[in-house]
């Protein structure tokens, strides 16, 4: 079935999908075989997807990263892991559904999984605050990390947030402190941490799950210090027009390729042609392979060495002259 395009640049793909569906429907009605007609169209579809996705601009990449058709943390939890038991609450104030986490098994072994969680529809987005956590979310995440450390189990995080929530309650309860505390504690957590940006990695609210031994990004995900809209609004007093957003997206260097070149991430995880949303299972398999591979490497390293290397990794970040 052709899905309705939410992204303008996917329109040619959508048209072709519609054409194929139409042909199939007609064939079904008249009991005809149209396999010969469809085969070249299918090939053309794959080629077209490849073509469109090869040439995405940074802003288009951001739109893909934000798409609600992409797999979310809970999708990867279902597809890459087994035996998931979700844990709730920060034990201090309340439960924050913008971050999910709990015990799970990766390749049969117990691990801790923590990720931002967006909603697929409006109702779920309201419950999950569009994946923008309050301090409670970060404190829950930290509680789960400490729990993992206690039982000597690795931590896998998934980053997928426009940013930490900016609101009265979040400020009153110490949003800044909650994020800072996570950065600090993750810097010396004595179990392996693997972080993956699966959608939008927005600023401090993303980094609060991102101080890790390995940091990876899915091919069409983005990671930025500020939203493209915020940047354009500050620099050019226009955070809305596509031209200014495109300028900001380009200037900020937010794509996985950019971050690999800047030395901020370790690996880009390939997505199926046309983006992770075209095939959740293939995207998850690709992610799962990388998670297992990194864990196999990290589990051999002693805790002190792991922490030392993690610190060294972050101490090296940045560019300057002297």
């Amino acid at each position, binding site marked *: 079935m052709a899905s309705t395009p939410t992204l303008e640049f996917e329109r040619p793909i959508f048209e072709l999908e519609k054409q194929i569906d139409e042909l199939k429907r007609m064939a079904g009605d008249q009991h005809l075989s149209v396999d010969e007609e469809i085969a070249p169209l299918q090939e053309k579809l794959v080629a077209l997807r490849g073509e469109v996705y090869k040439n995405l601009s940074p802003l288009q990449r951001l739109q893909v990263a934000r798409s609600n058709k992409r797999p979310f943390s809970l999708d990867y939890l279902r597809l890459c892991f087994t035996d998931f038991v979700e844990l709730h609450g920060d034990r201090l104030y309340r439960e924050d559904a913008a971050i999910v986490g709990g015990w799970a098994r990766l390749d049969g072994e117990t691990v801790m999984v923590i990720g931002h969680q967006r909603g697929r529809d409006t109702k779920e987005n309201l419950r999950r605050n569009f994946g923008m956590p309050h301090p409670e979310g970060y404190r829950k995440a930290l509680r789960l990390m400490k729990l993992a450390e206690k039982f000597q189990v690795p931590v896998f995080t998934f980053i997928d947030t426009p940013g930490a929530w900016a609101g009265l309650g979040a400020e009153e309860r110490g949003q800044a402190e909650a994020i*800072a505390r996570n950065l600090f504690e993750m810097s010396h957590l004595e179990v392996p941490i693997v972080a993956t940006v699966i959608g939008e990695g927005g600023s*401090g609210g993303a980094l609060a799950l991102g101080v890790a031994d390995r940091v990876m990004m899915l091919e069409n995900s983005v*990671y930025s210090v500020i939203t493209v809209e915020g940047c354009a609004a500050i620099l050019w007093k226009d955070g809305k027009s596509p031209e200014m957003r495109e300028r900001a997206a380009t200037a900020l260097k937010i794509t996985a390729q950019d971050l690999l070149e800047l030395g901020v991430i370790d690996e880009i995880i390939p997505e199926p042609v046309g983006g992770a949303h075209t095939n959740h299972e293939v995207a998850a398999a690709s992610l799962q392979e990388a998670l297992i591979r990194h864990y196999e490497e990290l589990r051999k390293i002693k805790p002190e060495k792991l922490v030392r290397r993690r610190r060294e990794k*972050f101490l090296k*970040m940045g560019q300057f002259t002297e």
Partner: protein
Amino acid sequence: MAWFKKEKKARQPRRDRLEIPPDVWEKCEACGHTDIREKFVRNFSVCPNCDYHRRIRAVEYVQIIMDDNSWEETEADLRSTDPLGFPDYAGRLKKARTNAGEMDAILTVSGKLGEMPVNLGVMDFAFMGGSMGSVVGEKIARLAQKSLERKHPLIVVSASGGARMQEGVLSLMQMGKVSAVLSQLADRRIPYVSVLTNPTTGGVSASYAMLGDAIIAEPGAVIGFAGPRVIKQTLGQDLPEGFQTAEFLLDHGMLDLVSHRKDLKQTLGRLLRHMSGKPAAAGWATS
């Protein structure tokens, strides 16, 4: 009714106007109080009438906190580059260097506070709004490294709008970098005190500013993760009076102390002596 009439007095000759140079007077931007400049200066650039803490330069904080002639600047040669080729960043850097100085948005020094060796970093809002890029992160990391090597306490005075947008995700990573080195200090039990001045927001508040073993703020300083303008935008309404001020944070359990600038040195000294197992200093109020 002749008795009701005012008796006319002969006019007194006008006194000659004193010629006062205009820069002798200072007017408080908060309450409008006007006083001679000397009074502001002697009061650490705090309004003698309403206690409004004016913004001062990094080197002035160093002079307030450190013992006279005891300190020297560290890592003075680090310079920001333009790693992303960001529009107009090179120009803005040049302008900031001309207007604010070469030290980027932080001045780091090693020296003595009440005869105790300490390392001190002071952010400077005059340099691109105190924004944190690679140089700020690196200077703090190296200063903290010095603290690690010599077991000297670390103090960072923050004044910043947050991460420096023009260095993109590299600025974001400085939050991780400084937090990593602070966790090392913590593991080695070396005290770190954070001082928050107006404003401390964004990536700076969400990393080292909120990680002190003690956190002190200046009265009235605006402190928060999101800036007031951003929150106002999300809410679509005005913020409550006093929201995100130092006093508000103290009430909400986010700070240890709000301290007048004139007491800052002594407060820091007493805290650091407690945390490094040193006896109380002579001459400081300890009752």
